């Protein structure tokens, strides 16, 4: 199991640090006050594994049975330095075994306790599975093909009638995300309090980044977009909108998502995504791409085998699927804003880009071709090392102090800042938006994706026949080629978009008309969903980009936006003398 780098370095710590206590309180019922000067107690374990506190012989109370402390995934999320990173502690609640266990104990549809299982798969997971197919089968493979086979697996083997991908949920997320950006831009331009905290807006879809910011860079939280990630929008769609159409309440649905990383498991178990009314989570269980592969293998399902000609796909609910959004394979958040801003400009626009240090950190500047004015400046920033520099830059540009969480601050002196460097210009203008992802290479390189196959036929550039650290260089070259393969399959079914939009002209000139039609269909469905969920009684249509009034708008925010909070460590560790 591999969490993203950002989570690894902050959450998981194999040391039981004496200065850090588990924050999970254990209720102590009627504890007698300790006798001053009482002898120290020892703890005995009986044959059944129960723990007893045994005092000295003269103690009045007999051996006292101790309560076991229970720690759930939710608690771990809030903790600043838990007992152990043992995998079993953190992921017992979410695994493919859990899914199988649910399915086998799920009462039949006729029963009132039956829960309708729904699977939602991320497009990066599909790309990863497709890449593994492409090495073993000679025929053409594509994410669409993979999805249809997975759908067959879920239907025939697991008894799961509804299988979707998350691209439509992402479409909604992008709509809301763009809306939020425009709100924040307007607030920033209007001045007033907190104007400097509106931009740059930072992507919120990566839970590795969000958890890292909550724990160690609370000053970044105001900048992070409040729009839900595609996974969580899917949770809302499935449990609330789809549920209503199926005549089910949220707790009568069991929603499983397949994601490219383990960090998504933590996202799904956040308190914000827990429905208090129905006591159910929007996403019940997250499994990784690798775990889905294990699931299929355990059930002897061969994904490379074509479906029989006479196979009829199940009659599950319909949502637009395999939508492509121009931009990055991590969700195209930056690109969607660039496109929006370009479309709003009266003149044609020019888009410049440059790499900073590596392909994981790229800056984009959108200029009005007529006036030369910069309309929008954004960046794509992936990977932990680039996050470090980004956080520093954002804090400096906005004039906030970079905090260090539990660590102490140097009391003496502040770093010497650039004196008298007040030049205006491109290099000094702050960002309007940054697409932040914790994993280098983005989501296609998530910790839960399939690993490269050995016999993949990729040319091995390293000479054979030597020992030592051959494996290191090998695996790195192999990984790169594999990742490129997954990336290319990710964009497979689409009018292949360029990595960044072509300079000059409007962007929709690139898309084929079919592509545009499908996105238009998605827009219309999104509007209808918004109406169904927020203004069900209304006769008129709604438009996603327009504000609803009063309660409806509040409802919209509840459904499609979320919030963040700093994790305060109450254990500062200064009491420990090192």
């Amino acid at each position, binding site marked *: 199991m*591999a969490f993203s*780098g950002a989570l*690894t*370095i*902050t959450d998981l*710590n*194999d*040391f039981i*640090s004496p200065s850090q206590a588990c924050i999970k309180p254990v209720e102590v019922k009627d504890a007698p006050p300790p006798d001053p000067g009482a002898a120290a107690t020892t703890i005995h374990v009986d044959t059944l594994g129960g723990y007893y506190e045994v005092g000295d012989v003269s103690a009045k109370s007999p051996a006292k049975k101790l309560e076991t402390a229970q720690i759930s995934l939710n608690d771990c999320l809030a903790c600043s330095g838990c007992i152990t990173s043992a995998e079993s502690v953190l992921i017992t609640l979410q695994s493919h075994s859990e899914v199988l266990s649910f399915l086998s104990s799920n009462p039949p549809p006729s029963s009132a306790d039956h829960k309708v299982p729904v699977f939602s798969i991320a497009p990066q997971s599909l790309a990863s599975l497709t890449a593994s197919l492409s090495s073993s089968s000679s025929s053409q493979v594509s994410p669409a093909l993979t999805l249809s086979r997975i759908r067959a697996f879920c239907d025939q083997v697991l008894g799961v009638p509804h299988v979707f991908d998350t691209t439509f949920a992402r479409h909604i997320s992008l709509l809301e995300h763009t809306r939020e950006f425009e709100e924040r831009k307007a607030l920033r331009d209007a001045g007033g309090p907190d104007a400097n905290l509106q931009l740059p807006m930072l992507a919120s879809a990566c839970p590795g980044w969000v958890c890292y910011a909550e724990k*160690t860079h609370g000053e970044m939280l105001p900048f992070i977009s409040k729009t839900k990630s595609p996974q969580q929008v899917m949770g809302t769609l499935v449990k609330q909108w789809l549920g209503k159409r199926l005549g089910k309440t949220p707790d009568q649905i069991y929603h499983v998502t397949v994601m490219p990383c383990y960090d998504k498991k933590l996202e799904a178990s956040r308190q914000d995504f827990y429905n208090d009314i129905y006591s159910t989570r929007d996403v019940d269980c997250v499994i990784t791409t690798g775990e889905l592969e294990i699931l299929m293998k355990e059930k002897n399902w061969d994904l490379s085998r074509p479906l029989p000609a006479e196979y009829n796909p199940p009659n599950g609910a319909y949502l637009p699927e395999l939508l492509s959004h121009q931009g990055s394979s991590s969700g195209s958040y930056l690109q969607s804003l660039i496109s929006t801003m370009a479309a709003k400009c009266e003149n044609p626009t020019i888009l410049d880009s440059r790499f900073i*240090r*590596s392909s994981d950190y790229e800056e984009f500047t959108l200029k009005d071709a007529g006036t030369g004015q910069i309309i929008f400046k954004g960046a794509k920033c992936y*990977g*932990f*090392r*680039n996050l*470090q*520099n980004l956080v*520093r830059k954002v804090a400096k540009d906005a004039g906030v102090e*970079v905090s*260090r969480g539990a*660590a*102490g*601050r*140097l*009391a*003496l*002196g*502040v*770093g*010497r*800042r*650039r004196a008298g*460097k007040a030049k205006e210009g491109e290099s000094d203008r702050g960002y309007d938006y940054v697409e932040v992802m914790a994993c*280098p290479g983005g989501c296609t390189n998530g910790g839960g994706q399939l690993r490269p196959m050995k016999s993949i036929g990729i040319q091995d*550039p*390293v*000479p054979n026949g*030597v*020992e*030592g*650290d*051959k*494996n*290191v*260089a*090998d695996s*790195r070259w192999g990984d*790169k080629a594999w990742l490129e393969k997954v990336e290319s399959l990710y964009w497979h079914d689409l009018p292949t978009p360029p990595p960044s939009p072509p300079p000059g002209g409007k962007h929709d000139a690139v898309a084929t008309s079919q592509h545009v039609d499908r996105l238009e269909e998605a827009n219309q469905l999104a509007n209808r969903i918004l109406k169904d969920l927020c203004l069900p009684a209304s006769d008129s249509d709604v438009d996603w980009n327009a504000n609803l009034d009063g309660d409806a708008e509040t409802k919209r925010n509840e459904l499609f936006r979320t919030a963040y909070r700093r994790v305060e460590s109450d254990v500062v560790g*200064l009491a420990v003398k*090192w």
Partner: protein
Amino acid sequence: MPSSPEIKYPYRLEQIAELTGHEDKVWSISWNPHPDHPLLASCSSDKSIRLYAYSPPSTPSSSPSTGSERKDKESEYNFRHVSTIATGHSKTVRSIAWTNDGRTLASASFDSTVGLWERSPSNADASSSSSAGDDVGGNKELGVSGEWELTTTLEGPDSEIKSVAFSTSSSSTSPSPYGNVGGLVATCSRDKSVWIWENVGDGEWETVSVIMGVHSQDVKCLAWYPGEDILASGSYDDTIKLYIDDPQDDWYDFATLEGHTSTVWSLAWEPLPSPSSSTRYLASASDDKSLRIWARTDAPKKGVLGHVNSSDQRWECVKVLKGHERSVYSVSWGHAPSFAADAGWIASTGSDDRINIWSIKALTNPTSHVPLVELIASREDAHGIYDLNAVAWAPHTTTGEMEGVLASCGDDGVVRVWKVVKND
């Protein structure tokens, strides 16, 4: 310490200075490498850094001196306390390091930050025009005096930082205010990660790489290969890792050196210029009471570790040195003095309170990588009953003023300076 039968070594250590003042354990010492700034720095659990200036003798001792001249030697070097930096770190300062130009000092602390310190501009400007070689008053004093101020804080690692080290490669030779643009510094910490930062000018440092998932435990020490951007790290996981940058991608570990049976506490590369004809050695000190010398044994090229795609490298332990009875905490590799016909001298120390000096003989057999090592001096109870935490040879200069001189520090809060002299 238990007394062993009196062994007559060819050399012995004579103390030439005892520097007190710290209020708690002294964890590390570092000599300023630049001749314009003859300073010895020490750092402590008392969260301060103390700077001692010294006056290298104008003529190197062409003949090793005997004990009766000790009094003269002490005043000859004139170690004196010139400055204390109350760093403001909230926990122990565990490690310090100087840049090659001697103008910046880094302080690595258990509070998980690193402070970068420079002398206030007026002092720095005045001394930059001094010439090495004046040995009384005037310019030399300007090279060591003055107030030190914090110019940058490096933050990011999540737990105690154990070591900090500046690269000495040629990428860091374009001088500018606040150090050399392009220069790299590395830190390692208990969170098992190694961070590499680059000087981007104007007192700003950017994170170049965060190397995670390589060591499986606390990373204790770092050492940059002399003159190259190649890094070595030692860890509580008993291994040593070597790293290099892949310009297309990121820093990565290209070799793992295994052999120690416990924590690797300290590393030292054989310094430049190297008389070794075939390879560059790495020395390591471990909790398993031994020191090991490692070498690249496959296709050695003088002074070059090989290209980036270095999967054909083979690193082996070519020597195990036993001379300590407990954990060895520190190793330092220096040039041998002119009066000794050796390729180099290694100093080691640790929990047995003993300082050992080992000589490395020049290799006569060019195809063998196994160095000839001999224990040539040993000082028991160097800091009394207290553990020694570090030893470091004084900087090497072509005129050899500080040859045979090394500093040690220990849990007694004292820094001692020694000179290795020949036994008659």
